[in-house]
C-alpha cells in the first residue's frame, strides 16, 4: 500500500519535472517578458526588441550547429576560433589583401563564399579527427580551438582590419521588410535546422547516432558520414556568425571575434533542453535558451545590476535548467 502510494506520489512529482523540462524554458521566457513589461521602463519598444534580437542572433546561429553536434554525442569547442578565421578572411578579400583586386563583382561573392567554405572545411577536419581517429570530440575540437584563433591572428598579424562595404555589411546592418537581416538569417537557420531534425531521414540518423552509435551503425546508418556532416554544418554556421560579427562592427579583430562563443552556444543548448549526452536535438529549445540567457542579462542590466552579477545569475540558470532536464530524464 505504502509502496504503491509512494510510486504514484513520485510519478506525479516526476510528471512535474517532465512538464518543466518540456515547457520550463518557454515558461522562463514568458515570465521574463512579463517581469520586464512591468518593471523595465520602455521594454515594449521596437528598439528593445531589435537590440536583444541582434545580440542573440549570432549566438543562436552558432548554437544551432552546436545542437546538431551535441545531438550526435559530440561537442565543438572550435566555433569561436572558426568565427575569427572567417571574420579575418572576409575583410582581407574585400580590402584586396589576398587577391589584389577590389572589383566588387568579384570580391563581394568571394567575401561570402571563401570564408564559409574554409570554415566548412575546418569543420570537416574536426569531424575527420572524431570519426577517423576516434578522438574524443572535446580533444579533437580543442586542436582548432587553440590553433584556429592563432591562424586568424597570424593572417592579420593581430591587426584590426577596418573596412566599409555596404553591400557586404547588409548581412548585419541591413533590413528586409523592417527586420534586421541578421535576425532573418537566424530565423532561416533555425527553421532549416528544425526541419532537418523533424522532417528528414538525415535528422533521424543524427539522433540515432547520438542515441546509440553502435546500434545505428548496425542498422545501416553511415554513422561516420553523419558525424562529419554535423561538424561541417557547425563550422559553416560559425563562419556565418563570424561574417555577421565583423560586418556589424565594420571591423575585424582576430583577438576578439567569437571569443568565448563556444561557451555561450553550449550554455544556450543546455538551457534549451538538449542533453549533452546526445540522442536529442531541441532546435527551438536552443533558440529559447539563447533568448532566455540574453533576456536575463538584459533584465539585470536594465535594472541596474552590474554585468558581473549577471554572470553569476547566468551560471545558476544553467545549473538549474540542466538539473530540471536531468530529473525529468531519469523517469
Amino acid at each position, binding site marked *: 500500500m505504502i509502496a504503491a502510494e509512494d510510486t504514484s506520489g513520485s510519478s506525479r512529482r516526476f510528471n512535474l519535472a517532465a512538464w518543466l523540462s518540456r515547457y520550463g524554458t518557454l515558461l522562463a521566457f514568458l515570465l521574463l517578458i512579463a517581469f520586464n513589461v512591468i518593471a523595465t521602463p520602455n521594454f515594449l519598444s521596437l528598439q528593445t526588441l531589435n537590440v536583444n534580437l541582434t545580440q542573440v542572433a549570432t549566438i543562436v546561429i552558432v548554437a544551432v550547429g552546436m545542437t546538431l553536434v551535441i545531438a550526435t554525442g559530440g561537442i565543438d569547442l572550435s566555433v569561436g576560433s572558426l568565427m575569427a578565421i572567417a571574420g579575418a578572411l572576409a575583410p582581407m578579400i574585400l580590402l584586396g589583401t589576398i587577391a589584389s583586386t577590389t572589383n566588387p563583382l568579384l570580391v563581394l561573392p568571394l567575401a561570402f563564399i571563401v570564408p564559409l567554405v574554409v570554415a566548412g572545411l575546418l569543420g570537416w577536419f574536426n569531424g575527420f579527427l572524431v570519426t577517423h581517429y576516434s578522438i574524443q570530440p572535446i*580533444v579533437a575540437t580543442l586542436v582548432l580551438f587553440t*590553433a*584556429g584563433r592563432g591562424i586568424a*591572428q*597570424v593572417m592579420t598579424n593581430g591587426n584590426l582590419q577596418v573596412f566599409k562595404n555596404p553591400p557586404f555589411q547588409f548581412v548585419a546592418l541591413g533590413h528586409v521588410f523592417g527586420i534586421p537581416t541578421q535576425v532573418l538569417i537566424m530565423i532561416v537557420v533555425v527553421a532549416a535546422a528544425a526541419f532537418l531534425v523533424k522532417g528528414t531521414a538525415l535528422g533521424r540518423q543524427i539522433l540515432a547516432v547520438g542515441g546509440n552509435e553502435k546500434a545505428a551503425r548496425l542498422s545501416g546508418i553511415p554513422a561516420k558520414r553523419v558525424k562529419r556532416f554535423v561538424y561541417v554544418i557547425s563550422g559553416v554556421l560559425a563562419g556565418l556568425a563570424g561574417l555577421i560579427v565583423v560586418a556589424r562592427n565594420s571591423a575585424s579583430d582576430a583577438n576578439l571575434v567569437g571569443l568565448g562563443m563556444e561557451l555561450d552556444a553550449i550554455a544556450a543548448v543546455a538551457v534549451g533542453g538538449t542533453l549533452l549526452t546526445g540522442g536529442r536535438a531541441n532546435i527551438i529549445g536552443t533558440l529559447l535558451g539563447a533568448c532566455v540567457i540574453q533576456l536575463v542579462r538584459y533584465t539585470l542590466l536594465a535594472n541596474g545590476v552590474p554585468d*558581473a552579477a549577471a554572470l553569476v545569475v547566468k*551560471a545558476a540558470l544553467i*545549473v538549474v535548467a540542466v538539473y530540471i532536464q536531468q530529473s525529468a530524464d531519469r523517469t
Partner: protein
Amino acid sequence: MQESSHSNIVAALIPRSNLQLARLCVITVVFALLIFGALRYDNFLSSYNILSFLRYNSMFMLIALGMALVIMTGGIDLSVGGTAAMTSVVAALLSPYGWPAGLLGGMAAGLVVGIVNGLVVTRLRIQPFIATLAAMLATYGMALLLSGNQSVSASYDTAFVSIGQDDFLGFPIPAWIAIACYVVGWIALERHPVGRRILAVGDGEATAKLMGLKVGRTLLGVYATSGLLAGLAGVILAAQFGAGQPTEGVGWELFAISSVVVGGTLLSGGVGSIGATLAGAILLAMVFNILNFENGLGVISLSAYWQSVIRGAFLLVVVILQAKLMNGRSTR
C-alpha cells in the same frame, strides 16, 4: 604460484604499455626540445632562463595537476581559469593583512569553488562539463564584483608579493610550491590507496560503487583539490604581478586540458600519470620559450601569435599518435 603471479604482472603491463609508450614519447620530446634549445641558443640553459621559466609556468603546472586528477575520474574542470582569477583578487584584497592571510584566503576561496563543483557534480548529478562551465562564469562574475571591474593592487608592505617574486635557496618560491604539490600528487596517485580509488572511479563509477568505494567522496575530493590548486595558482598570479587580475585566466582551463592530454591521460578517465602531466605542461610552455629565443636569433621573425598555432599543431600530432596507439590496442 610463481607463474601465475608472473603472468599477472605481464597482464597488468600489457594493456597499458601503449599508454606508457605515449608517455615516454612526451618525455622524449621534452628532452629533445631541451637539447635542441641548448644547442641552438646561447642562454637557453642559463639559470636566468630556467628560473624565470619555472617562476612563470608554475601556475600552469599547478592547474594542470588538479585537472589531471579530475580527468582521471572521467570528469573535467573548466572553472580553473575563473577560479584563479577570482582567488588572485581575493588574495590581493587580503594581502594588506599579511602574507598568510593572502595565501590562505586565496586557497580557501579556491577550495570553496572546488567543493561547490564537487557537490553539484555528485549531489545534483550534473555533468562535470556543465557544472564547471557554470562555475567558470560564476567565478569570473565574482572576480569582477569583488574587484570592481579592475585589477586590485597587492600590498607591498607585507611579504605577500614574495610568494610570487622571491627565491628560496636560490629557487623561485612558486616553483617550490609546484614541486611540493607534484610530489604530494605523485605519492597520492602512485603510493596511496586514494590513487587506486581515483582511477577506479574513472574506470567505471558503477563498478567502483559495487566494489564498495566511496565514489561521491572521491569525486568531491578531486574537484576540491582542483579548486585548491587553482586557488594557489591565483595567489601566485597576484603575488607575481603585484595585483589581483579579474580578467586573467581566460583559456587556462584549455591549456591545462591540453597539458593533461599531451601527457597521455585519456579524457575518458581511468588512467593517468602525474609525471607525464608535468611533462605535458612543460612541453607546451617550452614551445613559447623556444619561440622567443628563435625570434631573438633574428633569422626568422614569428609573432607571438604563432605560439597558439604551434601549440595546436603539437596537440594535433600528439592526439593522433595516441589515437593510433589506442586503436591499435583495441584491434589487437
